[in-house]
């Protein structure tokens, strides 16, 4: 074994270890940053190891590519606001998938357009371009729907499922054929084209709000594409990194689907089908108590114990900084403030945590559902800021509700509930919320950011 091989393989092995350690450190909030730095070092090692590879004869294109990539990547890292994380992630899945797919195509092409590809390698290459291509278009669609330059509502037409399944079956058929007889470029490129089309048709009928599950699933597919690349070119670090990604995306989509009360198969097979239909059980005859910012401010100023329940509305209003400001005021008055974070509050796993962390809320105050649910009954005020489905008591009691069975935050046990939203419109699941009609609930209508600013202003005055 030449010293060069030893160096390369040592670098790859170390990179793999560092990736594992990096992810592992994400188990502990206080070690997470150090861990990501380990993963960065791993990536650097893998790159440096590759650069001395014996097949590499010229560096001009490589350097150009690295420079251009850095120029594009830097702003994507530094300037993208936290509220745009979902589309940001969809966007970069697309980039990752493009890289994997192009490498697959180039590999196929260079081996005599398939003529010199052995069957075993063809299987790996086939997986690579299949997963890669469908992730490219799937991620692009998800990105478009989240960024809203594509219609975010589910786009459906008659027989759509048959078209999708048909494309999938044909693509798999071509794949099998290619493994048996790799030297068939037409079949190969047709397979790539079909996979691209399949990615579009997979995401088209899914609503924008369902995109986070789709994105996680695509993350998992992108990981599998990387693993397949590793098998094709015989590189373990690719296999390992791909498997880690695959596991991560898969687990996150399961967590999300569970917390959203959607079936596992529903997610596995591409979160097919439309968003849950509204089981509109109108709460006619009930009255809503609305409250003025002044009155709400008085309640908050005298509360001993407040639990803040943020939801998607806080993200829309970008109100996280005002939330922290309000909390500090309450604490200055001698009250205690905790935050109850539902696992699928917002539109992305961990969405609320990132926003509140951005506003300098210490993470020990961000409590997970199981930890805080017992505390509501001792709370003077539960302050619901743009959350809706995650506090809907129908999940506990109404068997007919589409969210029945989903674990929710027990805000209704608090002595007083104050809900901030702009209207009586439903949230993501499209259903009525009985919480808003309860006696101990008061609605503070208006944009969350503005309402919070008013509250802060009022309390400061007092």
């Amino acid at each position: 074994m030449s010293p060069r091989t030893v160096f390369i393989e040592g670098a790859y092995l170390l990179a793999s270890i560092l990736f594992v350690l990096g992810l592992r450190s994400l188990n502990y909030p206080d070690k997470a940053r150090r861990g990501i730095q380990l993963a960065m070092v791993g990536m650097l090692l893998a790159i440096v190891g590759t650069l001395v590879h014996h097949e590499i004869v010229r560096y001009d294109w490589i350097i150009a590519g690295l420079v251009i990539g850095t120029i594009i990547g830097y702003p994507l890292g530094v300037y993208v606001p936290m509220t745009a994380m979902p589309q940001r992630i969809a966007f970069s899945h697309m980039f990752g998938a493009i890289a994997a797919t192009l490498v697959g195509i180039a590999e196929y092409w260079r081996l005599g357009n398939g003529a010199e590809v052995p069957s075993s390698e063809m299987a790996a290459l086939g997986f690579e371009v299949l997963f890669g291509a469908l992730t490219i278009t799937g991620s692009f669609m998800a990105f478009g729907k989240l960024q809203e330059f594509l219609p975010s509502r589910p786009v459906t037409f008659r027989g759509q499922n048959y078209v999708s399944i048909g494309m999938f079956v044909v693509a798999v058929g071509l794949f099998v054929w290619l493994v048996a007889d790799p030297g068939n470029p037409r079949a190969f490129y047709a397979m790539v084209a079909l996979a691209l089309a399949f990615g579009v048709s997979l995401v088209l009928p899914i609503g924008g709000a369902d995109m986070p599950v789709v994105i996680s699933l695509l993350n998992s597919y992108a990981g599998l594409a990387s693993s397949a690349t590793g098998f094709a070119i015989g590189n373990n670090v690719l296999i390992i990194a791909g498997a880690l990604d695959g596991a991560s995306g898969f687990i996150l989509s399961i967590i999300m689907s569970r917390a959203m009360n959607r079936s596992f198969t529903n997610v596995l097979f591409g979160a097919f089908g439309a968003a849950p239909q509204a089981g509109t059980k109108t709460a006619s005859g009930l009255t809503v108590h609305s409250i003025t910012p002044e009155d709400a401010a008085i309640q908050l100023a005298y509360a001993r114990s407040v639990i803040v329940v943020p939801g998607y509305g806080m993200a829309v209003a970008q109100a996280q900084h005002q939330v922290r400001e309000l909390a500090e005021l309450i604490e200055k008055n001698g009250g205690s403030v905790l935050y109850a974070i539902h696992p699928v509050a917002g539109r992305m796993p961990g969405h609320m945590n990132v926003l509140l962390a951005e506003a300098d809320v210490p993470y020990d105050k961000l409590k997970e559902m199981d930890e805080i649910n017992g505390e509501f009954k001792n709370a003077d005020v539960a302050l619901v800021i743009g959350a809706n489905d995650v506090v809907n008591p129908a999940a506990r009691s109404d068997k007919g509700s589409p969210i029945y069975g989903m674990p929710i935050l027990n805000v209704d046990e608090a002595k007083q509930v104050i809900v901030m939203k702009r209207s009586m419109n439903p949230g993501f699941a499209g259903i009525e919320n009985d919480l808003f009609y309860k006696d101990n609930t008061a609605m503070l209508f208006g944009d969350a950011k503005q309402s919070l600013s008013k509250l802060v202003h009022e309390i400061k005055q007092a």
Partner: protein
Amino acid sequence: MHVQLIEMYVFVLAGFVGFFVITRVPALLHTPLMSTTNAISAISLVGSLVMAGADHGTTATILGFVAVICATTNVVGGFIITDRMLKMFKPAGRPGAKK
């Protein structure tokens, strides 16, 4: 052939490692987790670099070049944004001095 077989073990074991590690990431850090795996998945850069630098004809070089751009974008962007996010997570002890 035999090599691909051993690589199967690598894949399966890495899957287990991924499963055991990821299931223990607290919900608090799920967003950074997504962006980290995003950055790590840009490891396909390794394959792209070889394509772009090897002597496999212009088509392969160009495809490799584009792949290098895409993958590098993810490496750089992914790690920066993750670090930016994690920097924000602070325990109660030392809250940011921001006003």
